């Protein structure tokens, strides 16, 4: 079995895996815009509710993952229940496995690269099936299935199968949408583009959402958007006004203004950090007197370290939730299960909050007060996030396509060298700067994210950090592409006058 590779196993699945073909010819700038916008709109349509649930199911589901939904575009009670989580998890698993040389892939070969991509897709499909089956088995949907009473009726197998296929089907579809991006039809990476879109949409919706929903366990109703609700319920009576303002900052079923301000602050800081850079003077080896600078950013890996950390935490929480439910169903003593995690429902928002157990220490608190009240958890959580993201940045700066070695290779191909350095020492010079940049960037970003979480950002701060960082990446690719076409585009002709 000397020539056997794990990668070859994927060959068996190649004929049955749906695939997006590589473009036959260069996709023009206009077409790329259309593909990007089109896939974005299709992605947003995935947030329609699942058929078979009662109306306003998103507020009635007892939700153990409320902390992480925002980061992965997991919309409660909708087709996007799993969001981008399967795709992101699969991508990280494969990238790390290749980077740390756990599997043997030569990404220079077309065939291997194809297998690698298919493997990633297959993992994403399998994960989606796993998550969906786990959710349904854990009784996540039991309280919201149409015409089903968990206390009196038997198991609604038909509905279960129906819901399962809806979630899994849409998750497959999302994975294929991402592939459209990754095969070069659109701008940027699919995952990051969708995350940006989702974050931006939610940012606007949280503030001025017009929809009016009933509050659970009460007969009142409120608007979805925090600011809009405040304006709608404006009153000249001072005591009522005071109460309304307090409510706008503390309500927990809908987004509140605290989360909004945390997001806003995060945006300002991230934009600042994004522009911290060291400029290495470079000169061309071919043309004389061609001096320029090569910027190395502080956020060398962008928001990937943070995204990676939250992928890990979310996966731990999800599989923890499954495990707790499975153990409970098999009548394992409740003391033992409580060691793993114990959930308690919160009456104001139907969130399942962790109260004890191992999972409790890897979760964040929903308000600033509760993070002060459980200091041990806060410390462990902060340490976990910061350490994992820094570790990832350290690894990533060596294994990604932008490692010191690869960058110096690029320099050589383009006939560039660092001013005042010989050709051979370029790698050495770069590897003195790049890993330090990556690690300190990831460190500062994760501290920013965790600060938001401790103050009660409920993942909004994290998602906005990831969103803004990815927006920069997409914008950069967009501008480069735009300049290459020389501004020769139908769209710029149409919108140029604006």
């Amino acid at each position, binding site marked *: 079995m000397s020539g056997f590779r794990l990668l070859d196993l994927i060959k068996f699945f190649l004929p049955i895996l749906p695939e997006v073909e590589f473009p036959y010819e260069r996709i023009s700038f206009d077409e790329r815009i259309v593909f990007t916008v089109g896939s974005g709109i299709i992605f*947003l349509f995935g947030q329609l*509710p699942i058929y078979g649930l009662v109306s306003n199911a998103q507020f009635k589901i007892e939700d153990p993952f409320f902390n992480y939904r925002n980061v992965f575009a997991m919309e409660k009670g909708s087709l996007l229940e799993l969001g981008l989580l399967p795709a992101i998890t699969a991508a990280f698993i494969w990238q790390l496995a290749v980077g740390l040389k756990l599997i043997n892939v030569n990404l220079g070969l077309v065939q291997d690269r194809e297998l690698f991509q298919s493997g990633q897709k297959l993992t994403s499909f399998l994960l989606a099936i796993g998550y969906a089956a786990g959710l349904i088995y854990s009784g996540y949907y039991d309280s919201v299935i149409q015409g089903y009473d968990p206390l009196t009726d038997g198991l609604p197998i038909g509905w279960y199968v129906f819901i399962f296929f809806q979630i899994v089907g849409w998750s497959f579809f999302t994975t294929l949408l991402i592939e459209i991006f990754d095969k070069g039809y659109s701008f940027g990476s699919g995952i990051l583009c969708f995350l940006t879109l989702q974050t931006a*949409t939610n940012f606007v919706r949280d503030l001025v959402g017009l929809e009016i929903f009933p509050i659970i366990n009460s007969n009142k109703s409120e608007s979805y958007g925090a600011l809009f609700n405040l304006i709608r319920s404006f009153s000249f009576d001072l005591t009522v006004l005071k109460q309304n303002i307090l409510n706008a900052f503390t309500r927990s079923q809908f987004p509140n203004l605290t989360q909004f301000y945390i997001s806003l602050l995060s945006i*300002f800081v991230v934009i600042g950090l994004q522009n911290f*850079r060291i400029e290495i003077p470079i000169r061309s080896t071919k043309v004389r007197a061609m001096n320029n600078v090569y910027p190395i950013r502080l956020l060398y890996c962008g928001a990937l370290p943070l995204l990676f950390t939250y992928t890990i935490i979310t996966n731990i929480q999800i599989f923890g939730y499954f495990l707790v439910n499975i153990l409970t169903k098999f009548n394992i003593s409740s003391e033992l299960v409580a060691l793993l995690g114990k959930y308690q429902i919160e009456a104001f928002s139907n969130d399942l909050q962790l109260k004890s157990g191992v999972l409790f220490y890897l979760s964040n608190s929903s308000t600033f007060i509760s993070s002060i009240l459980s200091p041990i958890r806060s410390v462990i959580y902060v340490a976990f996030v910061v350490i994992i993201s820094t570790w990832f940045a350290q690894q990533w700066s060596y294994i990604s396509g932008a490692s010191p070695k690869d960058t110096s290779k690029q320099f050589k191909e383009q006939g560039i060298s660092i001013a005042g350095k010989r050709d051979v020492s370029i790698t050495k010079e770069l590897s003195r700067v790049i890993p330090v*940049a990556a690690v300190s960037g990831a460190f500062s970003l994760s501290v920013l994210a965790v600060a938001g979480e401790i103050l009660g950002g409920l993942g909004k701060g994290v998602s906005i950090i990831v969103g803004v960082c990815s*927006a920069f990446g997409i914008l950069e690719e967009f501008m480069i592409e735009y300049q290459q076409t020389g501004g020769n585009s139908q769209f710029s002709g149409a919108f140029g006058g604006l």
Partner: protein
Amino acid sequence: MASEGLEKFTEVPVEFFKDGSAFVKKCTKPDSKEYFKIIRAVGVGFIMMGVVGYAVKLVHIPIRYLIV
């Protein structure tokens, strides 16, 4: 021996903070004019994207009533 191991253990973070802060000090930072320019550009882009996205989401409301 034990103290040596401990020293090594504390050395890594100390080294890390030294390198990191030196790096940040050396960085070119955006001045306030550049900063506000970027904030405006990114802010407009972000909010535009959000508004369009939210408009698509508003289309969901009638569909929601149809299918639930």
